[in-house]
């Protein structure tokens, strides 16, 4: 993982408070396509800080966990959709939750929901699928 300032390749922004999940998705992405870079942050505050202060183009995809400290995933989606610049960035929810309430909330915001897998081989498949959401710029 590189710091935001050092990056040169297309970026995916991943918001998740779980350090292992952040590490695993970065590993899986590295295996699937090393050209992409995963910027993984802990919460909404860090996510918006990155979006507002990065001098480079915006990320091609934002991946959100739902249960987060502070503002939750759905809250982040609402806020992103109100912002002119970020409104056009694709969003995918990546979570352990399979509850109907969360599914409904995602459907309301027309955001796809992917369940966190329990094996690494499935996770690499998931990484491929995530890349397919990336906005080709």
């Amino acid at each position, binding site marked *: 993982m590189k710091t935001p300032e050092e990056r040169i390749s297309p970026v995916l922004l991943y918001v998740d408070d779980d350090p292992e999940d952040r590490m695993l998705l970065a590993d899986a992405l590295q295996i699937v396509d090393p050209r992409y870079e995963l910027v993984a942050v802990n919460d909404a505050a860090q996510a918006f800080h990155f979006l507002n202060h990065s001098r480079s183009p915006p990320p091609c995809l934002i991946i959100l966990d739902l249960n987060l400290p502070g503002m939750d995933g759905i809250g982040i989606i609402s806020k992103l959709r109100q912002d002119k610049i970020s409104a056009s960035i694709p969003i995918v929810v990546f979570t352990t939750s399979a509850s109907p309430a969360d599914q409904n909330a995602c459907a309301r915001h027309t955001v796809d929901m992917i369940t966190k897998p*329990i*094996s*690494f081989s499935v996770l690499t498949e998931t990484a491929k699928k995530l890349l397919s959401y990336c906005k080709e710029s």
Partner: protein
Amino acid sequence: MTDSGYQHTNVSIQTPAFTGFIRFVQNQCLEEFVQNQLKHFSEFKLPFLQSVAVSVEAELQAYTKNVSIDFLQYLAVGDIQGYIQKSLSRWKRELIKIPGIHPVGLEDILGVTAIRKRSLSALLLKFTRDIDQLQMINEASDQVFLTINLAYTKAFEDSLRNNLYEKYLFQEEQKLKQTEELYKQAQALNKLGNWNWDIKSDNLYWSDELFRIYGLEPQSEKLTFERFVSFIHPGDRDERLEQLQNQLGHPGRSEYYFRINAADGKQKILYGQSEVLKDEQGIPARIVGTCQDVTKQKELEISLYQKTVQLEKSNESLQQFAFICSHDLKEPLRKISILGDRLSILIRDQLNEQSAALLSKITSASMRLHRMIDDVLSVSLISSDKNFAKQGLSALLDEVLQNIDLEPGQAKIEYNNLPQLLINRAQFKQLFQNLITNSIKFKKNETVPHIFIQQQNPTPDQVKRVGLDDTIKYTCIHYRDNGIGFESVYSEKIFGMFQRLHGQSGYEGTGIGLTICKRIVENHHGGIFAESEPGKGTSFFILVPAE
């Protein structure tokens, strides 16, 4: 007994000729008179004389003589009534009081009188041969004996009537006593008393049981309204008095509950019903009512309510537990499997065969645990989904088959004319999906799974077998396949959670499929059971309430 009936026959028979004849018999033919009677007695064999009065001839003779002396004595002074009274009291004393002897008694009385008359007449020619005199005596004699017979008959009839009436009264009294006794028993059994309050005189009547309800000996004191009020629990007193006041203003039946502090120190809950009765002027005169001790029932009600609340709480915590399972337990488990998986990939080259196998066992075990937790969660959520709608089963099965996505020739599934039922669509789809995938999974080698689904009317035994309420009408969906089947001893076990009849290696799955089926059917207020034999396929009977 009244003697008014024969007063009119008390005509004068004091004819000198008759009196003379009687005196003649008294003085000169007494013995002959007695002998005549005895002779006739033996001829006629009167029942009473034969059976009861005297068995020895000498006694009958003495008896007849005494009666004859009496008879002649009364007639000599013209006192027929006197004779009638005396003989009646003798008959009554000796005869009529004997139960069941009445028919004999009348025959006897009239028979004896006739015999006496004949025995007397036989002596007439000894007294006179004067035609005029004979005629006068005969007339008088006829009159005397007619009077006697009429009096006897009347007296007998009266006695019979009185006797019957007494019997009737006695029977009625017994009946009344029995009814009262039953009523008292019924009141005691139901702890139900009745009362009656005369407003003006403040006369308060309580039945025995009501006294007992209030902890008092039955009818042990004279009651007043004030005394009644003193028993009412202070917390309910004002309300009860207000109810009574209202009732006087708005007559009609009223119902109420109130507490009392009974005389024996117990606090009780009573249920009462009462009604105001008005007098001719339309003014409330009395209140009548019943009162039942419902303390036990109320206590049961309260404890039932508390149990229900407890049950709801425990159900709620069970749901919470399931939720915790789904999230908090699953999260670290997911880490074990995915990190284990990642580890095995990273160090694949450094592992020998044995350690690679061990690592693979760890990840597959954690994945199996993962699936089981999911299964427990889905089972626990079944009963909370009460979303029912009318749905045709055939159309639903069409959808299920589309979802299963069978390859051509993989299985043959037949159904038609299935009913419409009030069901939860998603759950019933899962029910059939589980059954069908089971049938395919447990097919016989070298055979194509063949499944028949049809509707039946359940037999009473089937309804009983799954413990359903037999007052409700059920429909039965009979599902059968031609699979490997199982021993009938396992027909209950197969529905148990994580029960597997076949080793883990042979067939996939955690063993939750039929548990889910059972919960789904139960959530529809129905029941499911299975019948099978090894090698002969399996039948599932799904009973759900008919429309």
